Each structure stands twice: as C-alpha cells, then as structure tokens.
C-alpha cells in the first residue's frame, strides 16, 4: 500500500500507466495476435521521440520561456547532410555521425548566440533559427532522396534479442541523461537556474555557460535523432522532422517535467513517448478515420495531464 502511495506521487508514473492501458486495449482488440509486432514498433518509434524529448527536457528545465523550436529543422539538416556525406559508403558511418553532431553543435551555438547577443526570447530565436536551418537543408538536399549506407540501414531497422537497436541507443543515452541530471554538478546547476536565475547567479553558478551548454546539448540530441531517423526510413526527407516539434514538447509535459522549470525527470519521457505512439496505433487498429484520430489523441493527452495534475510539484 505504501509503495503504491509513494509510486503515485512520482510524476513519471502516470505516463507509464497510460501507455500500459493503451497497450492492453490494443492487444485485446486484436486478440493478442500483434503483441510482439506492436511492442517492437512502439519501442522503435518511441526511441526517436525520446531522443528529441530528452534534449527538449534539458532546455525546458532552464525555466519559463526556455524552449527549442529548432528541433525539427536540426533533425532534417543533420539527416540530409550526414547521408549526403556518407554516399552509401559503409566505411563513412562513424564520420557521418560526427558530421551530424557537428551540425548539432553549430545550430546550438547559433541558437544561444541569438538569445544572448541579440536578447531575443528563446521561443522567437529558435524559431527564426529553424527557418535558416530548414532553408539550408532544402538547399543542400535539392529534393533528392539519398539512401543510407547498407550497414547503417540494417542496424537501425534490426533488433537485438528482440529489442529494436534504436531503442537500445535511446536507452543508453537516457541513462547518461539521467546521470547528468541527477548526479552531476551540471544537473544541479540547470535545476537551480530553472527555479530562480538570479539566485543561481548569486550562488556562483555560471548561468550563461550552463544555458549555452544546454542549448547545444539539445541540438546535438536532435541531430543524432535526425541521423538515425533518416537511416531508419531509408533516406532523408525534407519534412521528416515536422511531427517532432510538438512531439518533443508533448512527451516532456506528459512525462511529468515541470513546464515552469527546475524539476524534470527522464523516466517520464519513456512512458510518454510510448504512450504517444500507442494511442495512434490503437485508434488505427479500431479503424478510426484521420479526423477522429486527431480529436481522440488530443482528448486522451488532456485526460492524462489532468489525472497526473494532482501531483505535488514540490515533491522531490
């Protein structure tokens, strides 16, 4: 009983409860036939949301007003340029990853330069940056669909002991993010900045340096996600990032991270990402039309946030 009570206080538990409920509802409808297929698909697609969600979570933790709307454009540019660089050559897979990460670093630097030097609010700065980045992607890509190297395409679509490889990548990065957030000095600093930027400055925290690193980190994760997604889907497309704009923010919020900043958790992002994919596939299984599906998705997200809303934000 006590375990149940303390579990129900954890902000991340609700996204898992919701994901599990939707999973069961879908399985029951199909009579258990699709259990393994559905679970693997959910893990695969959730992995991409998790990668961008973690980056967005770090940025949102920095406090009110901090958000990175450049995530989709970064994904597209990183995917496009990395695939073009690799030229279907297996030996260039790792250098290709380095190229993607370098693009993430560059976009992150650009974002924070706009925020800091021009004193533009992050929501506007990252949105403007996303136009620049997206245009660059269009210019480099010129509408061609370049295939990923064979080995990379296989890696992103295959499973290891039944678990999709991309989910394993997401798991490793999530564990690193958890350690970064909970155990390191940097993690303390971003949580402090999110609660009170003035108090953080007067406690000796290098506020600008910490925020800068956080924006760069978010862009790197988006770039890595774009690299994997382009390889997974057989080539980079110019609209491949578009659904991840709302997705990256939604999984953070549903996952129980405080929108006002200063309080975040990694586990909830997993529950929320699985939930977001499973809701859509459940409605698909039930044969709902596109309009109904969107309305239902919206209603279910609202319901989860309301149910989880009873939690105490001061609980840490």
């Amino acid at each position, binding site marked *: 009983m006590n375990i149940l009570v303390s579990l129900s206080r954890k902000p991340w538990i609700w996204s898992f409860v919701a994901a599990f409920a939707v999973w069961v509802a879908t399985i029951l409808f199909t009579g258990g036939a699709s259990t393994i297929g559905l679970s693997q698909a959910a893990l695969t697609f959730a992995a991409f949301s998790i990668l961008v969600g973690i980056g967005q979570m770090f940025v949102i933790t920095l406090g009110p007003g901090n958000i990175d709307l450049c995530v989709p454009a970064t994904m597209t540019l990183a995917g496009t340029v990395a695939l073009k660089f690799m030229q279907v050559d297996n030996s260039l897979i790792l250098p290709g990853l380095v190229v993607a990460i370098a693009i993430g670093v560059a976009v992150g630097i650009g974002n924070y330069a706009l925020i800091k030097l021009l004193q533009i609010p992050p929501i506007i700065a990252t949105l403007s940056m996303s136009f620049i980045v997206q245009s660059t992607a269009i210019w480099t890509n010129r509408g061609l669909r370049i295939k990923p190297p064979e080995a990379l395409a296989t890696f992103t679509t295959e499973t290891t002991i039944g678990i999709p490889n991309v989910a394993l990548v997401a798991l490793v990065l999530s564990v690193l993010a958890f*350690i970064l957030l909970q*155990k*390191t*000095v*940097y993690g*303390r*600093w971003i*949580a*402090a900045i999110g*609660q*009170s930027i*003035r*108090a*953080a*400055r*007067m*406690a*000796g*925290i*290098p*506020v*600008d*340096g910490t925020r*800068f690193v956080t924006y760069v980190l978010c862009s790197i994760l988006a770039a890595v996600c774009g690299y994997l997604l382009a390889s997974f889907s057989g080539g980079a497309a110019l609209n491949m990032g578009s659904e991840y704009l709302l997705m990256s923010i939604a999984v953070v919020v549903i996952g129980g991270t*405080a929108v006002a900043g*200063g*309080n975040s958790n990694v586990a909830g992002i997993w529950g929320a990402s699985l939930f977001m994919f499973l809701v859509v596939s459940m409605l698909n299984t039930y044969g709902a039309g596109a309009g109904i599906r969107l309305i239902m998705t919206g209603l279910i997200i609202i319901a989860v946030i309301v149910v989880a809303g009873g939690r105490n*934000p*001061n609980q*840490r």
Partner: protein
Amino acid sequence: MTAIPLRHAVIEVADAKISFGAVKALDGVTLRILPGECVGLVGHNGAGKSTIVNVINGGLSPHQGTIACAGEPMQRYGIAAARANGVRCVFQELSLCPNLTVIENTRVMHRTLTGWGWRRRAARIIGDKLDEIFPGHGIDPTGVVSDLSIAERQMVEIATAFSQVAQPVKLVILDEPTSSLDASLATQLLDYVRRFVEAGGSVIFISHILGEILSTSDRIVVMKDGKVVAERPAGKFDEHSLVAAMGSVVKGRHQEKRINDTAGLTPLLSQPSRRGKGLAFEAFAGEIIGLAGLGGHGQTDTLIDLYLARTGSWLRGRDAEVAFVAGDRALNGVFPLWSILKNLTIADLAGLSRRGLVSEPAEANLGQAWKQRIEIRTQDLGNPILSLSGGNQQKVLFARALATPAPAVLMDDPMRGVDIGTKQEVYAILRAEADKGRTFVWYSTEMDEICLCDRVYVFNNGVIVAELKGDSVTEKNVLAASFIGAAA
C-alpha cells in the same frame, strides 16, 4: 442609564493548537487583543509567531481551539471573515505583485475599489496614507512595484494595510515591519503605530529588535516552542528580562575590535569610487567591514557589483573569490523546489564532487555539520526549504556562503527575520572566521550590527561619503555621517 461600554476584545484566540506533522507549531495559545493597544510579540525563529498570525488573519484554521471577534464566537473563520472584521496583515515575506503598479496592488488588497475612476481613488488613498506614515517617502503610486527597493515595497505594503476603504481597520498585524527599513523610516512607522493605537486601533507587532518592541508596545507576549511563556505590560520588561524570557543569555555586546594596520598591504577586494564621487572601497584580509547609511543608498548595488565582477557567468573559476548571502531571500536566495540540503550545498558543489559527479555522502556530512553548527530547526535536511520559517531559511543561506572556501563573504542585510539567539551565534561565527583571515562585507540596516564591524563605510545617495574605524564606529558617528553630502 449610563452603562460603561463593555470592552470586547477585537479578537480572541483561545487554546489554539496546530501541528504540521510531528511539529507542534502552536500548542494551546490564548491571545486577547483589546481595542487601543499595541501588543508586542517576540520569540525565536520557529517559536510560532507567524503561525498565530496566520490563525488571526484567517489563513490557517486551528485544529483545536476557538476564535471570537468582538465577543462573538466565530464558527467559520477564514481570510474573508478576518478582513470583514477589520483584521489586516503586513507579511514578513512581502506579498505585493511585482509586475503591477502600486495603485493596482492597492486594488488587489481592497476589492471594493471598483467602478469608474478607481485608479484615481486608489492613488489618492494610498498616496495619502504613505504621506501620513512616511512623510517625504518619494514613492510614485503609478510606478511598477518591481522598480521599488525592498524598503519601498515594505512601505507600500504597510500603507496598504493601514488604508481604510470599506470596512474600518481595527487590527493591523505587523510581522517584522522594520526589518528592511532604516532607522529614520522605522521611527516614522513606530510613531504612526502609536498614533493609530491612541486613536483606538489595535496592533500586533512582531520584531526581533527588542528596543522597538519595548518602546512601542503596551503589552508584550513572549512565545517559545508554540506556547506563550510570558505576558506582561511593556513597562515590566527590559531588554535583559525579555531576552531571558525568550530563553537566551545576553552576551556582552562589546567585543574586541581589530584595527589593522593596512598601510602597504594589497586589498583583497577593491572598487574605485562610484560614479567618480566619494571614497573608494577597499577590503583587507580578516576584516569585518560594515556598509552603513540610510537604506537603499547604494549599499546593495555595491555588494552586487563586487560579486558580479568577481564571478564568471560563462565559466566557473577553480576557487570562488567571493560568496554572497542574500537579504531578499525570495528574489536572489532560495531555490523553492529544493530540499534544505540542496539549497545549502549549491554554492560549494565543486568541493563536494569528483570529476563532475556530486558525492552524496560528502554532501550529507556537510549538511549535518552546518545543521548542528547554526541549529537549523528541522528533523530532516531532506525536507523542502519552504517548510522552514523565514529566519531558518536565512540560516541556510548563511551556511551556504560560509561553507564555501571563498576568502570574502558579501552579506546583503542577512539578519532580516533572524532571532536574537541565532544572531549572537552568527556574530560569533563571523568573528571566528574573520580571525582565521576571512573578510566580511556586511550591509545592515541595524545599528547594533554596524557597531560590531571593524571598519564602516557610510553611504549617501549611492556613493561612499565617510569611513569610520575601530572605536569611532558608534551610532552617533554613523548617523552623523549618513547625512554628509558626497565630495566630488
């Protein structure tokens, strides 16, 4: 028939009990406030003063006990009932909305200010009251609150509480009203309190400055551990007996001062004269330096400038040169979502971590050591910081700065809301640390604290106008220097 009108108490709380978890915040408190009296309420941090105030203003319902207004027992007593009965409260944690103007804040407190021209009426009401309490205050009612200094905000809050719109004001609770006011403003307020009381109003006056409690109150109630331990007319107390009733021992006030021969030494901290006027600021190792003068004359700005110039916003240097103790806790001190422990250790994480990872045992040890050293009143340092009373939160901020290895500590009126026992302990810690070579730069609105310093810079209009050393640091000299104009 000439009946003498029966003097009902404005408010009467009988046998109130409140507990938060295992902590008994109030353990059977009975308090009667008559019309036309000023009741002084004293006690240590966490003695239950703020809790009884919250019961009277309707913010907390006692788990046991009764409340009666003007002789009538109240069944359902809440914030609305308290206001309807003329109870007003000036909070220790300032409660104005910083993004609104003074006029709009007046409207927030006085809901009956409605209809056409409420701004004009509100401006008149608050302006008149400010003029009445603090003549020459210089506050523009159309200005936004966030542009006001902490002292000015306190003045606005006090004037709002005393201004009468619909219901007559019968009882005003002043919770540490002078903590951010300098001596001259505090005198103006205390004079007004006496006028208000003589006109038939009642005041509950909470302060850690015993002199003002003794001079202003008619009756003094001493609280300790959630109980009333003494209650006498103010004339029957003096400073010693009051402190004894609170359960502390008064220590000798005169401590050894050091007059260092600083000629030829390099200052640890220095700052050229501000705006090219007045004296330059210099601090040497092992000194306790006071920043005095009337409140809001550039002392806080000097501290913040000193701090920001010596800490990086992009990279953290290996060892911080300076640490800062905030006076405005909510603005630049406390991290509200965090536990006490995380709030305490945030400034010295570098010393507690290896390769970027924070060592939790080392952090817990540091927390325990400081919990004992300055007696933070909590059972568990894992509790949220906001579960502490204001004075105890301030102790945590003190520990945060003292726990760092920084050779200089800057303090922005840090004793606001700290009880006398703790103050004495902190004074002793400061002196001991200074003897070990640490430098303290201390802005204080309290003359007693300024007089503890080795050397004092007096501010006026944003510049340093005088420097006092050693035995010449006296109340009289500081006050005289506060009114010197700056030499070009």
